[in-house]
């Protein structure tokens, strides 16, 4: 599924990472074979990765994700973090997804001091939606 050069790139991205990274996949119907396979391959390459999946339950899971299918990054305590993908990340978004996982494995946040200061002073919640299309 992943090309040899992509497999190497993934291994390099996670090299030195020490934190377990959890991902919760909330499915709506069958998970597409392509995403299932690439996720399994990612799991082979990244021993730190823990993937759980279950069908999205509108009543119970709306607090985690208002829609499904969704892929939710978990924090160190295994609780849903604020990073999520509505729809299975594919193409360019898959690269973003893997980068997010690698950042989490390294406990790394690559933001400017200005942004970090803004976030530290934030006294209200912010919901950011970025609409994309699979490419």
């Amino acid at each position, binding site marked *: 599924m992943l090309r040899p050069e992509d497999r190497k790139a993934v291994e390099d991205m996670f090299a030195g990472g020490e934190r377990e990274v959890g991902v919760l996949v909330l499915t709506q119907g069958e998970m597409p074979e392509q995403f299932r396979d690439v996720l399994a391959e990612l799991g082979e390459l990244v021993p730190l990765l823990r993937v759980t999946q279950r069908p999205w339950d509108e009543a119970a899971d709306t607090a985690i994700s208002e829609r499904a299918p969704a892929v939710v990054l978990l924090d160190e305590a295994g609780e849903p973090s604020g990073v999520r993908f509505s729809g299975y990340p594919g193409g360019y978004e898959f690269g973003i997804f893997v980068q997010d996982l690698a950042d989490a494995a390294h406990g790394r946040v690559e*933001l400017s001091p*200005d942004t970090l200061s803004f976030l530290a002073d934030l006294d209200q919640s912010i919901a950011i939606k970025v609409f994309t299309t699979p490419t």
Partner: protein
Amino acid sequence: MAMASNKVVAEAVDAVEFPRLADLYQVRGVPRTVIGKLHIEGAVPEGQLLARLRASLL
């Protein structure tokens, strides 16, 4: 930002998978970033996003 603050939720939405939501937010091109009343077309550098966010929260 969502990794750095528990006050931020960042959601990448597949506009093809969720067309009604994309319609609701008047998505005509991608990427389109929506934060409350703030709508930004195209990729936004971090500094610019921060400036727009600061202005929108005033």
